[in-house]
């Protein structure tokens, strides 16, 4: 349903960082996990996912490693770096402030 473009700017990064904070995983698994965790509400298409992953890697928030996946294929596993962890905290706080602010505006009084 919700297209990635409809996500608030920067939210996708937050989602990826959050999901990776649980355990290292590959792109496909990240998309699946976001879907599960959002109760099927958020579907992240690969057209947004992979550029985001590459950007985060370039920023040094996540790092990548090739490993064998659960179905015996070589897959690129992403993991949070120390920087990524710090960034996650900051981004989460930022998001909470933002969503609270939006709720205040949107909720009927």
């Amino acid at each position: 349903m919700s297209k990635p473009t409809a996500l608030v700017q920067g939210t996708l990064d937050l989602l990826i960082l959050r999901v990776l904070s649980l355990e290292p995983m590959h792109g496909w698994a990240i998309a699946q996990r976001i879907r599960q965790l959002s109760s099927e509400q958020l579907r992240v298409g690969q057209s947004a996912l992979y550029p985001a992953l590459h950007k985060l890697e370039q920023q040094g928030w996540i790092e990548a490693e090739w490993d064998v996946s659960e179905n015996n294929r070589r897959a690129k596993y992403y993991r949070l770096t120390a920087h990524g962890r710090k960034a996650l905290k900051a981004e989460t706080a930022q998001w909470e402030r933002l969503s609270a602010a939006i709720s205040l505006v949107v909720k009927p009084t």
Partner: protein
Amino acid sequence: MRWHKTLRLRLRSLFRSGRVERELGDELQFHLEHLVDDFVASGMSREEAGYAARCEMGAIEARKDDCRDARGLVLFEATRRDVIYALRALRKSPGIAIVSIVSLALGIGANTAIFGLWHGIVRASLPGVANPDEIVILSNPDDQGSWNGRTTGVRSWLSYAEFEQMRDHVAAFSGVMASQSSLATWRVRIDGGAPEEARGRLVSGGFFDVLGVGPAIGRVFSPADDRTDTTGVVISHSYWQRRFGGRGDVLGTALTIRNAMLTVIGVTPRGFIGETSGQQPDFWLPLRVQPMVTPDADRLHDTPPENSMWLHVFGRLRPGVTPAQAEAQANAVFHAGLESFYGAAASGARRHEFLDQQLHVQPAARGASAVRGELSSSLTTLLAAVGVLLLIACANLANLLLARGAARASEIALRLSLGASRGRIVRQLVTESLALATVGGLASIAVAGIFHGALVQLLAQSDNDFAMRFTIDPFVLAFVVAATVGATLLFGALPAWQATKTDPVAALKDQHRGAGGPVGHLRSGRLLVSLQLALSLPLLVGAGLLARTVYNLQRADLGFPAERLLLVRVDLREAGYLDARRQRVLGDLIDVLRRIPGVQSASFSQLGVFTGGESATSVAVEGYVPKNENDHDSALDVIGPGYFSTLGVPMRLGRDIQDSDRGDGMAVCVINDAFARHYFAGRDPIGRRISLINDDGHASYQIVGVANDARTHALRGAVAPRYFVAVRKPASSSNSPTLLIRTTAAPAAVLPAVRKAIEQVDRAIPIMSAVPIEAQMAPLVAQDRATAQLAVVFGIVALTLAAIGLYGVLSYGVARRTGEIAIRIALGAQAHRVISMILRETAAVVCVGLVVGGGLAWAAARLIDSRLYGVAPQDPLTLVMATGLLLAVALSAAFVPAHRAARLNPIAALRHE
């Protein structure tokens, strides 16, 4: 921590791009496979699942691009790809690549060579000199770098005593040195071998110290050498390499010059040329040996009133001292020196005149130069001309690329329709141009080196001492880079812009219609050709004007016939003749020469004809009231009997100098017409007296004749007032007079007899040169001829380039309109009508070019006004001839495609369509 990781990742993306690309593919493939698995799990067949998965993934290549973007290396990566693509594209059309690279290499190379020369002569600091900005020159070389003969006003050269005063008493300088103002050619015996010629200069002990230069090997002079009788010689690096094979044991080599036995003590560093730019001395001698190497004139110890000025003096300013402060200090010392030198000898008006001399202290980071003033204007002109040439070549390349852009129209249209932005494609096309230009620019450096050598040779025709090495310093390099980038933008931007200005749909539809490109290409092409023609015209006009200048100079009316005249210069000083003996031997020489069969008459002249020597005096003329205190100048020459009849200059009044005038007590002179006009305006000069102001009032000469004006010293300018005396009083110091021999046949025929006759008088008299007047005058026009030759070459190249450009555009236009022309012919159009149709189109292009070019030529010709002789810058004949030539060449270039169009076979052409 973080930044270096980031850097590592970026570098990885940059340099291991193959691996990164592969991983990107793998990663997306992995995703795709999962998607397929997912669809299969939901009940699809594997085939359906594969299709559905690819649908969902969309264009994988586009995804990859997004990822590359995210890596933030787009610009670099794109440029890398552009370059690779550009090189591939160039390999595909090697013809265009070769033509472009060669024309750029030649164009930029020629520009670089002239720029390098201009920079070296006009702007660059002396090579190898430490902190050149602190160096100032106290003598004042004028445009010619030579003494103008004046002893009032700003001093040109200094005497040895004056140099010593500067060296010892001016606190503003940390060091002062002097050098012989002209580079002399010496006959040198090395280790007792046969005499050979080498160029050397006398310099003071502080020479190397002031310039801040140490030895490459051995030692150089030190300031202390001014006070001891040193006999060392310092040789230049290039002479060391050339003459001594760079051997270390050169130190200690014996060098004999005339009476001086000298020893090589050191070698200067590579590239060091001394204090004068544009000259490369082979060695430097200590000033103290001057009386030994030029015997009979001790210029180290002058006695009043003889004050031989022969030195350039340089100083190094102490830190914080300005040239103006140094000038004030130097002048105070200089005036004190003048007062004590002339002392009681001078009184009244004479004294006032002696003391009316100043030193002018000016920055000399560029060094002295004998050619700077003379060459800078012609080099600037040449630089402008060769720059225009590069513009014309660029226009041709632009045309070439326009045509190629048209040929690639469908490729570009395809890329545009696939979503490439216009900017992206322009960038790609400009990168292609830049790749071409870079190769051309690199090649141009080698070309510049070759051109430089040729140019230096050309310039050395007018000045034997001129020499300059080709060096690639930062300025020259910056010029090459700027010229390359500039050329790229000039020839690459318009075609790129034009090529992308297409409607993709129309272009793609159009691509099956043969050679048809958009009309826009043709319009830009014509504009470029008009520009080329416009730029060519000033070059042609300039070449025409300079060629006519040389023609006029060679046929300039000298006032005497410039043929069958042999000029023999003998060195009487070397043979030991002084004063009265010198007078006698000159008489003997003329007597024997006159008796040679084939010799019509013979005489001599102290200054000679077109030797570059000059003699200036201040005169008081009987019955003439000077208009101001400087109105007393006249040139002087000491001549032999029959000078005017030998030269062939008619006498206007009175008589020539005769044999009887050479006796003691006689003091007669002949004046030229210019002298008569200035000092005797309308009065009869015969019998009046001329007195020299500076010679203690003793010398005065009675005028016995007035000769017509003759050009014996300069081709340009007005003939200066001059008087000619038979015997100079006090005795002249003419060391090497020129014997003038008028022959009945070619001078070469009597030359052996002349040599024998001189030997007969005294075997010890060396003949310095023996040339016919034509050869003597050749260097005078050599620089003009060199400039004219270059201008003519430039003009021809420009014309050729413009013709090629015109031909290209018309051929393209005809090819594009093949169908239309075929239909016209099929419908019965006559061949001449087709031809005139094409030529009519040409006429518009040519007319625009000629009108604009005429305007440019009219304006540009003024820039070379000072170089012209006997022809006005706006000379209509030259303009008409240049225009006619351009028109003729343009029409010939146009006729070929027009003729081809007229001979078109309509059936074949239309079937092809």
